[in-house]
């Protein structure tokens, strides 16, 4: 795993300091300027080119989407995002996870299969 785009990973790190002098401006910047998130609509800060750049920057061979049930905003974004990666010849796969899940065999199998694709 060379990089991530998790809401509780890189996206938090990307947020920087909250400007407190003008709190409204500060909070707006804090929300809209860092790494784009599926929960915030901001066509000026689009997830598509962002993710492609991130993959290239990290020299990643592929992208694994980690879909946590029942996150609708993420579920809406994913098919087109995967399509965009495909256009760039970046392989991707998706894993469905439930918060109440206790066995991860299916997840392991899926990751293994994806790694095999990457090894080509």
């Amino acid at each position: 795993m060379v990089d991530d785009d998790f809401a509780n990973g890189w996206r938090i790190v990307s947020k920087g300091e909250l400007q407190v002098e003008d709190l409204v401006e500060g909070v707006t910047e804090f929300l809209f300027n860092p790494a784009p998130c599926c929960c915030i609509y901001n066509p000026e800060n689009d997830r598509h080119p962002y993710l492609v750049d991130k993959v290239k920057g990290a020299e990643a061979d592929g992208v694994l989407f980690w879909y946590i049930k029942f996150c609708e905003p993420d579920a809406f974004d994913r098919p087109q995002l995967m399509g965009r990666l495909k256009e760039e010849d970046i392989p991707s796969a998706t894993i469905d996870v439930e918060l109440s899940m206790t066995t991860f065999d299916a997840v392991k199998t899926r990751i293994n299969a994806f790694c095999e694709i990457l090894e080509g």
Partner: protein
Amino acid sequence: MTEFKAFSKMKELMTNYYIEAKTTKEKPIAWITSGAPVEFLFAMDIIPIYPENYAAMCAASHQSVELMEAAEQAGFSQDICAYARTDFGADITQGGPAAGLPPPHFLLCSTNICKTVIKWYEVVARKYNVPLFIVDTPFLHEGLNKDLIDYTVTQFRDLEDFLSEFIGRPFDRDRFYEVLALSQEAAEHWRRMLYLGKTVPSPFNSLDSFIHLGPIVTLRGTKECVDYYKLLYEEVAERAEKKIGSIPEERYRVLWDNLPVWFKMRRLERFFEEKKCTLVVTTYANSWGGMSNYQVEEEGDPYELLAASYLDVYINWGFEERIKYLAQLMDEFCLTGFVMHSNRSCKPYSVGMYRLQEEVSKLTARPGVVIEADQNDPRIYSDAQVETRLEAFIESMDSI
């Protein structure tokens, strides 16, 4: 379904609407959410297209499964709203009763019904590479206030600028005021019609109102819509006057909360009729009696009144307001109980429903039931499960 003469008129209206939208060469097409301020579009001669309405039509004509499967095949999760999935599928396959929707020139989306539509319309905007205008209508946690109205009005002004730039001529305010009056008039006929349900026995049932909802969703703001609801109102009023009920014998009168189960309309209608139970009133159909329906004679800025009417929508209310409203309807319509459709697709309508049921039951001392279903996805619906719960509920009610 109760037989109304107006039904054929409605079919004609809806058919003409889809034909015009599919064949127009001159008029721009905007895809729009069911609770968005459509009046701005009509003022600029733009045809509004309602993907939600189309998805409902697909389900009512039992075509939603194959369409949703096409969307799921394309990667869309079964967890997202079934309306969106149905429409994505219809877009991919050009399927459904109108063989797909005409492609949009831009999109207008309002968050007063849910936040799901932002994501849904983002997908469409990306696919068609068209602009998306969002009217953000904040959730009314503690009722309506001036700040929320001002915030919404500011966006209406931006919308006018957007439309004028998009179409290439100034926003037509005179026409806009005419459209507002038409919208208001249609919504008022619809509201008065729905309130005839207070008559015992009820002259129509809610499955009728779900069917007759089409024009108030898709054509409010037009003269045809006003004429149609005037006709329907008069017909229903006559039945009310003569005390003709929608079912042969009415022993129970209940409220339905949330969307219909579009693919089970007939079966549920027979079921309720057999049990001598009328679905009298629904929070869903009532919503279009409120939107655009402000008192024209009321003093005040029409933009503010319009903003208030679009913010003040049941599904955009906090719990306290919902509880009060449900209890009020229970009393006003002399109901014996209430049915809550916990709809897998529509999270904002369904979240907290078990709690609502408890509270409203306590407040009204009348039973309520929650059924687990979906408005568009028959694959997660079980006749046996739903009907067993409904039977037990009906047995627990005191008849009128």
